[in-house]
């Protein structure tokens, strides 16, 4: 028996009802497309998160006030950061950071609204792996003296001064005049942070000039980044910082009012939030595939009933039951694989469109394509097996009498 001929018979059977065959595949198309989209959206989200976290710098510990504790956002102080710098061993440096409300910036006759200002300590470029393009960063002494200087992002420099050098220029941030002493190297937009569009100023200047809201402790910091000498020392440094801060804050180390995270922790936390979304999509995809499979089974059963006489004749003139089974199994596999192929195309197109116009980062996972095909073929076999068995078991005497 020539299996290419059975394939031909199966194909002819499907072409008999083109519209019906197409509608039958829709469930699989939608299911497979959602698998592809789901995987590309979550891969995109994970890649974006990882990139964002890694952009903070390597071997980093991130110390923040504990969320959800009243007053905790004011408990992490600049003195804590200095204490870490003085007593903790195994660190390269620290960068205490505080971000006031966005400010209006005027310079060179240009006014820019809503510019992010970041107060940092002197080791910021080193700790955050974020070098300067020109000029220099302020020193610890400059910071302590509350020197009115600023280092600006490369994009901001271009916006304000164009081709001209930004160094030595004066910019007015809010109502404070600052002298530009450096321009950061271009880093671009990572996550939702436009590094090139920010102004970096000594954190003490921020405390003095921009954190005037009475609620805030004037020298509270939002985050302390600690650069550790090597990956191996992360645990030891974490322990030292934990004990030091618990001691300074007079809290039980088991119930701290701060958190210490590594980049891996942050990535894991962020991914947990996207996991719910991804799980939802996975369910949608799974249910579509299931519904698609049931649709195929339904139509195959209808088809077997409709073609009972034909099947009876084929068996009467010598078709082995296994050929009949193969014919109907091939029909359902053609349906599901065609649905799979169309689903892959539509899924990739949707992912690309989401990425281009949907404001969503997507990254097509190559593995999802064979996975989708295997799933589609599996559905074809699983949901086609019962109808094909029905056809193969037909008694030719009864089938030939069927009206």
């Amino acid at each position, binding site marked *: 028996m020539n299996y290419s001929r059975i394939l031909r018979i199966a194909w002819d059977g499907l072409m008999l009802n083109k519209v019906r065959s197409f509608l039958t595949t829709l469930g699989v198309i939608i299911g497979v497309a959602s698998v592809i989209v789901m995987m590309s959206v979550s891969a995109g989200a994970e890649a974006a998160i990882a990139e964002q976290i890694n952009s903070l710098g390597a071997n980093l510990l991130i110390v923040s006030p504990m969320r959800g504790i009243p007053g905790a956002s004011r408990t992490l102080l600049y003195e804590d950061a200095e204490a870490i710098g003085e007593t903790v061993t195994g660190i390269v440096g620290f960068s205490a950071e505080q971000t006031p409300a966005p400010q209006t910036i005027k310079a060179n006759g240009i006014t820019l609204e809503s510019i992010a200002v970041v107060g940092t300590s002197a080791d910021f470029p080193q700790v955050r792996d974020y070098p300067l393009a020109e000029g220099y960063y302020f020193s610890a002494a400059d910071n302590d003296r509350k020197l009115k200087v600023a280092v600006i992002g490369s994009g901001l420099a271009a916006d304000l001064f164009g081709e001209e050098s930004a160094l030595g220029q004066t910019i007015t941030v809010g109502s404070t005049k600052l002298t530009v002493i450096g321009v950061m190297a271009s880093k671009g937009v990572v996550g939702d942070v436009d590094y090139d569009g920010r102004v970096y100023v000594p954190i003490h200047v921020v405390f003095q000039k921009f954190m005037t809201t009475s609620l805030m402790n004037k020298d509270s910091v939002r985050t302390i980044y600690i650069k550790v000498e090597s990956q191996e020392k992360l645990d030891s440094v974490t322990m030292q910082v934990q004990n030091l801060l618990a001691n300074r804050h007079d809290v039980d180390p088991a119930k701290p009012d701060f958190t210490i995270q590594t980049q891996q922790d942050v990535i894991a936390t962020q991914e947990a939030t996207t996991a719910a979304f991804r799980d939802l999509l996975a369910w949608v995809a799974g249910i579509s595939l299931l519904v698609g499979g049931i649709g195929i089974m339904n139509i195959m059963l209808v088809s077997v009933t409709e073609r009972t006489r034909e099947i009876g*004749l*084929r068996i*009467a*003139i010598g078709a082995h*039951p296994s050929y009949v089974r193969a014919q109907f199994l091939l029909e359902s596999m053609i349906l599901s694989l065609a649905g799979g192929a169309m689903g892959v195309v539509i899924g990739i197109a949707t992912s690309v469109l989401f990425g281009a116009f949907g404001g969503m980062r997507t990254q097509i996972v190559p593995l999802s394509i064979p996975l989708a095909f295997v799933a589609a073929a599996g559905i074809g076999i699983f949901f086609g097996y019962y109808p094909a068995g029905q056809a193969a078991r037909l008694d*030719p005497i009864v089938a030939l009498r069927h009206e």
Partner: protein
Amino acid sequence: MNATLIEVKDLKKVYGGEADSEVCALDGMNASVERGEFTAIMGPSGSGKSTLMNILGCLDTPSAGQYILDGQNVSGLSKDALADVRNQKIGFIFQSFNLLPRLSALENVLLPLLYDTREAQPQERQRQRAITALESVGLGHRMGHHPNQLSGGQQQRVAIARALINQPPLILADEPTGNLDSRSSVEIMALLHDLHKQGATIVMVTHEPDIARHAGRVLCVRDGRLISDGRGGNNPCLAREVAA
């Protein structure tokens, strides 16, 4: 080659499982058919003639007894082996033609070759055989037509060509003229006569005495038994049917 093509010995067919609800469709039938014979099987409905036909066509298996077709005992064969016997040794002609509507006449005739498990001939050779078969039933000019473009008589001729394609030793015709008008019936019977003259062995089930008289031999079946093996007009089965 053995002159006997069909031999049934003490053939029984019982339907139903429970002893008290059993229906005995064939109750120990003995008969044989020689090669080249044209035999009609007659009998009232419920006589067991359809069951006999199904067993002769290897579509059904007997509960007891032996069926020897072309020297091979087919009583105990598996489903697949029976399918091969049907494919290679039996050409079926049905009352309702049973052509596949979306295939052309030629493709319908080619159908049995599709399921032939013997070594396949080249496609062109198969096509040539199908064309020859269609020409032999006088439909050489209608090969591309679909069944719905053909008259009933023409459809039955396509079915006969399909029955002949594998050159089976036995042609089984089940009420071959049952769905045809009298003119087409005459044509189809003439065609069967021609086949018989060319040496084909034909077994035909019918309830019409006029049709049965075309056969050289009429087996009359009643209550699952062969009650008469008459030839021609003196058969009680024929006589009864005529009287009724």
